[in-house]
């Protein structure tokens, strides 16, 4: 049972032959929905018959108000159930919340940290190896130089010969 809410305070107080502009504005939707009494409808019509401003306003408001009725009837989508079924299946095979929100980010972060630490470790190893090899290569060079050049100079008696001759 559809009950109409007819108790429009303003319209109940209208006891005249014609409404004024303010009363028209307060009753437009009730007029469109045919919820005004016969006397109020007559008073409403009497005003808009000669007031161009209210006539235009009633026209605009009613066109906007009734615009939605025209497009509410949709043709039924034949694939609605198929898509719904697909969505339901996808939802059931979806990764659980714990895996998606906690396990996946945690494993990503741990992989990232592992990568960083591995990088740092490899870097440290390289530095220590290179410093050892540098030290050993320096000592070998020194030894070689001593044996082949410095010692040769030490053993060279040419200068001593010259000085002794003097």
């Amino acid at each position, binding site marked *: *049972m559809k009950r109409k809410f007819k108790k429009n305070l303003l319209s109940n107080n209208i006891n005249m032959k014609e409404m004024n502009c303010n009363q028209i*504005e*307060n009753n*437009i*939707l009730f007029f469109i929905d045919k919820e005004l009494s016969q006397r109020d409808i007559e008073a409403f019509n009497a005003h808009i018959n000669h007031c161009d401003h209210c006539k235009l*306003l009633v026209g605009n408001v009613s066109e906007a108000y009734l615009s939605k009725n025209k497009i*509410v009837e949709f043709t039924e989508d034949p694939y609605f159930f198929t898509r719904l079924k697909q969505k339901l299946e996808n939802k059931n095979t979806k990764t659980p919340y714990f895996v998606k929100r906690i396990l996946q980010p945690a494993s990503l972060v741990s992989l990232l940290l592992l990568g960083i630490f591995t990088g740092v470790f490899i870097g440290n190893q390289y530095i220590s190896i290179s410093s050892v090899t540098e030290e050993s290569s320096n000592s070998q060079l020194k030894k070689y130089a001593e044996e082949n050049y410095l010692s040769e100079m030490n053993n060279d008696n040419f200068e001593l010969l010259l000085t002794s001759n003097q």
Partner: protein
Amino acid sequence: MTESELVEGVLQKKEAAYKELVLKYQKQVINTCYSLLGNYEDAQDIAQDVFIEVYESIDKFRKESKLSTWIYRIAVNKSLNYIKVINRRKWVKSIESFFGKENNETQKISAHQSDMPNNNLISEERKNILQNALNKLPENQKIAFTLNKYEELSYQQIAEIMQTSLSAVESLIHRAKTNLQKYLINYYN
């Protein structure tokens, strides 16, 4: 299949029963969502969520009300939740636009509108004016008005869906109309 047979079938996860339930209430659910959201694509998406909820929580249906009333209630709640999400996104977008990011959606809409013939554009504009006015209504007024005006539900059915009294529904619809009238007149004046 009767209503109780449908419910029993869905409870036992029978596909045939579920399909029949969907086909029976599909139009009603899409229309309700559309009336509240004002966008057909969104209404279809939310309608699918409604039926998924029906499938998953049919055991919570206590048969105190009609099945259609229970489904309406889910549709209304899902639509309202979606509106909240949309409003939150709008708020974030308004902050983004404040910091200079371009609003691509507005550009898309205006591009889409420019492709429309003139008559369609005018009716689309009227629809937008009404939808904007409806969106300004308080939540309860909007639900009561929409279910009454566009779904043509009785005040009794609306009272059951909204879990409120008949007089409260009457009052909500009356206030919704008065407010809507005010918004529309403000727009055209």
